[in-house]
């Protein structure tokens, strides 16, 4: 087989026409080559142009974009000069794209089998009676259980992970030579993500495909890619082997990026990379990274660095020899830890929540169905000044618990009590002003949680006016003070959310919560919509606020490393039931519950030498089992029928560390140590 590259992007520049008539570039002079059997990771923050590159590889430009210069050649074809018909033949056939959200890219009204048949018809020479065999073969290839049944299902009948597998099967159906992946595992649970990545890795080796893998997640890149290209403000700034780029990159941006990732085995806080990349057309004459670079000199402002080969990969930097001054392991601050105290701040007393509403006929005939609660029997005490982390996969009920504490969802039984032992009325309408003010909620996505029609001043004015009667000049002065506390200046007062970056919006949302001077702040996945470098800044901010005010947090996230960085104690939830709760250092150092072990094992580290441990199948359970241990169906350490029939007992491991499992705690620890050895 010849070794000439299959896909070759040659100095491509893509831009859009601004309202001023200028053409502003979103991609500048990007080149890449892919040969059979190679896999290239493309990393960068949002807006760096990484998705535009892979779409351009298919000869596709998003609406409004135009090719300024350069060419894309795939298998000898110039992709931007082919006719629509010729492109149709190639796309989805020899060159296939797997998008981020397969749930949305699969046609909802057609069965998986039918959709696969369409691809086979278009791109293969198979005859009608061969389709079904091939479909079953393909679905088996992506390790979907029971391919015959899956082929007959509609996309909505599959879980997120299964949908993603079906999308991969579809990409493989046309015998793709090049697979383009655009954040294929973002939004999936950690265990599912780890499984999908293992699948992709195996497939690329088995089928000798070329892969271009776009992601913001360096952990995912580390698992599947041989080489990495780092993008910044529309330019490739660093290219090298994955090991080189992830362990000792020579480019200051890559180093900063690595330092901003929270690490599972390091309790220190990640280091924020301040500032943001220049907007298209505003990169100036010098290096695009200059405003955020710690080792920039005058030369970097004046002179645009060219790509040059160095011992640390091909990169764009004038001072790469000095880049080691920037630490990648993190010089991060120690997280603020709460003092042990008996003073309570919030007590959840056997809290149960159910989404099930008895139907009209059920209530009419008094028929009692045994439907397990969505969230069941949660008893947690949060002491003063403490941060409690809630972790678990999607559907574990972590956000549901937060919303119930905030009074937005009704509880079925149990109670929520404040520190003084008073029971909080379950519904927000019945709570006193004092109780409302002391508990504040921050949402996942600031685009949704900030009213697009309110300025920052109006947004902050709301809690100030409501709880403290501060309006006009007084309110304004206080708002500016709060803005400063979240590292934003008073000049933000007149801006609308649409005029802020993602990180700034989330700071405003945090400022709004702190304007109420709360005792307890509920954080619902508040960093998951942000870029890593911005996430690090927000984590840092929360840590500072915790130190300054002694505020309590309940911090919900699916990202275990983020939770570790902020939490004093961690509670692990599965299917709305508590599995384990204890001081975070203990829970992370030696996981005790089998589910915690599974979760931690699946976390991807940005290190090509650390493979995730896949201990359980990534089956998605829609409802908890009616009896026994909630984790019975997936548990890698299942004992037998006792797990199915009896609720596991609580066992105490250390001083405030509890797990809920039938297996004696010593045995669990012993087994894990044995496995590790």
């Amino acid at each position, binding site marked *: 087989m010849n070794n000439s590259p299959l896909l070759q992007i040659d100095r491509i520049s893509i831009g859009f026409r601004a309202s001023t008539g200028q053409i502003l570039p979103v991609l500048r002079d990007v080149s890449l080559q892919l040969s059979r059997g190679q896999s290239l990771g493309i990393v960068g923050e949002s807006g760096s142009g990484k998705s535009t590159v892979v779409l351009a590889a298919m000869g596709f430009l*998003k*609406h409004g974009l135009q090719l300024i210069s350069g060419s894309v050649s795939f298998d000898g074809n110039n992709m931007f000069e082919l006719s629509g018909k010729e492109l149709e033949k190639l796309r989805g056939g020899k060159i296939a794209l797997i998008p981020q959200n397969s749930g949305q890219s699969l046609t909802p009204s057609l069965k998986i089998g039918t959709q696969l048949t369409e691809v086979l018809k278009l791109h293969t020479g198979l005859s009608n009676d061969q389709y079904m065999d091939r479909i079953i073969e393909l679905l088996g290839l992506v390790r979907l259980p029971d391919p015959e049944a899956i082929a007959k299902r509609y996309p909505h009948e599959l879980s997120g992970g299964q949908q993603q597998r079906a999308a991969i099967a579809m990409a493989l159906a046309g015998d793709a030579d090049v697979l383009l992946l655009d954040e294929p595992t973002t939004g999936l649970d950690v265990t599912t993500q780890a499984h999908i990545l293992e699948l992709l890795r195996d497939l690329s080796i088995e089928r000798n495909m070329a892969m271009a893998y776009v992601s913001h997640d360096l952990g995912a890149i580390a698992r599947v890619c041989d080489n990495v290209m780092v993008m910044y403000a529309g330019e490739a700034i660093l290219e090298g082997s994955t090991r080189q780029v992830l362990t000792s990159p020579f480019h200051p941006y890559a180093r900063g990026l690595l330092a901003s990732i929270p690490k599972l085995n390091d309790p220190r806080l990640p280091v924020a990379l301040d500032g943001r990349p220049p907007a298209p057309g505003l990169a100036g004459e010098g290096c695009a990274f200059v405003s955020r670079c710690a080792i920039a000199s005058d030369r970097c402002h004046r002179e645009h660095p060219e790509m040059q080969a160095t011992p640390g990969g091909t990169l764009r930097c004038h001072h790469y020899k000095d880049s080691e001054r920037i630490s990648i392991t993190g010089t991060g601050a120690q997280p603020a830890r709460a003092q042990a105290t008996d003073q309570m701040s919030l007590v959840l007393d056997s809290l149960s929540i159910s989404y099930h509403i008895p139907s009209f006929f059920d209530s009419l005939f008094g028929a009692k169905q045994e439907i397990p609660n969505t969230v069941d029997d949660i008893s947690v005490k949060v002491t003063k000044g403490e941060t409690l982390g809630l972790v678990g996969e999607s559907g574990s009920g972590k956000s549901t618990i937060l919303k119930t504490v*905030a*009074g*937005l969802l009704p509880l079925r039984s149990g109670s929520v009590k404040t520190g003084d032992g008073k029971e909080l009325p379950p519904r*927000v309408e019945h*709570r006193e*002003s004092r109780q*409302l*003010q002391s508990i*504040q*909620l921050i*949402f*996942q*996505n600031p685009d*949704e*949680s*900030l*009213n*697009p*029609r*309110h*300025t920052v*001043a*109006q947004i902050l004015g*709301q*809690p100030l006016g*409501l709880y403290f009667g501060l309006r006009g000049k007084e309110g304004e002065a206080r708002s*500016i003070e709060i803005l400063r506390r979240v590292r934003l*200046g*008073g*000049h933000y*007062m*007149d*801006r*609308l959310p649409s005029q802020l970056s993602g990180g700034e919006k989330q700071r405003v949302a945090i400022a*709004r919560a702190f304007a*109420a001077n709360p005792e307890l702040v509920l954080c619902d996945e508040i960093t998951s919509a942000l870029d890593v470098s911005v996430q690090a800044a927000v984590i840092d901010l929360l840590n500072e606020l915790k130190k300054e005010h002694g505020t309590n947090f309940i911090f919900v996230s699916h990202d275990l490393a983020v939770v570790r960085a902020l939490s004093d104690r961690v509670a692990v939830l599965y299917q709305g039931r508590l599995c384990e709760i204890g001081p975070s250092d203990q829970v992370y150092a030696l996981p005790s519950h089998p589910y915690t072990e599974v979760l931690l094992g699946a976390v991807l580290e940005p290190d090509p030498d650390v493979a995730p441990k896949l201990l359980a199948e990534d089956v998605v359970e829609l409802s908890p089992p009616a009896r026994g241990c909630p984790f019975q169906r997936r548990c890698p350490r299942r004992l037998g029928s006792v797990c199915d029939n009896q609720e596991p007992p609580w066992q105490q491991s250390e001083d405030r560390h509890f797990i809920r499992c039938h297996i004696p705690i010593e045995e669990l620890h012993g087994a894990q140590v044995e496995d590790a050895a």
Partner: protein
Amino acid sequence: MADQAVNPARTASSMRWLIVLKDIWARPSGAIGLSIVTFHILLAVLSPLITPYDYREIDAFNILSGPSAAHWFGTDDLGRDIFSRMMLGGREALIVTGIATPIAVLWGGFVGILFGLIGGRIDEFLMRIVDAFLSLPWILKMLVLIVTFGSGNAVLIPTLAFFYGIPVIRIARAATHDVVARDFVSAAKARGHPRFSIISRELLPNVMDTLMVEGAMRWSWMLLAFSSLSFLGFGVSPPTPDWGLMIKETRAYLTFAPWGALGPVILLSSLIIGINLTADGLAKALGIDRAQKAPV
């Protein structure tokens, strides 16, 4: 004080509308629409001062004459100058619909938001009544009322406002459902703001834009309805000039004197096209219409 920088978004809501207007003007279709609408409004206001003839002036010796230097659009069956009557023919329609449209949007919007906030089974039930009402042909419903109460503006305005408010209920309710489900409303609820404050501060500003666009669309449809009523003889009564009425009056002579209908038809359709283009521009300027070219 750098902290007190002036921002258009905050100074006054009237400033916001100026910006929106500028945005509409910046789009070719919006600029055309806005020019046409402005032209029509100016024409309606100024026409009594600038018409070459009195609209009642009958010239028995010069009936159904073709276009000439004296009568640009000819004369009608009574020898009246069609050009003068054309210029005046939009006044009545603009006054009636200009009053009825805001009323329709206000009451329809109010009821729709209310339904949206009530939600649940009551909302579902009420909406089925609305659906049933919408399934009847509008002209039938309107004629029943006009025949019962007589024509004239005192009946026409409330009738049009009533019937054209009903579809607004649907739109306002849907917009309310959308906004209520968003996190900033949950956030306000969790803070414990009173219901009224949530509605006025969080909900209304976000529903208002949709209602503005809807109002502009309703206006153009209402104009068509008004002209249709006139054409059927239930709107404006002679000798007041009106486009719908003029089309009706010249219908009998359409084969040999088509200029009588041509002028009013051009003016009426240009006004409706103008309003529609403006509404389109408004929707884009407010960010409601996010439709883009399909990526195929």
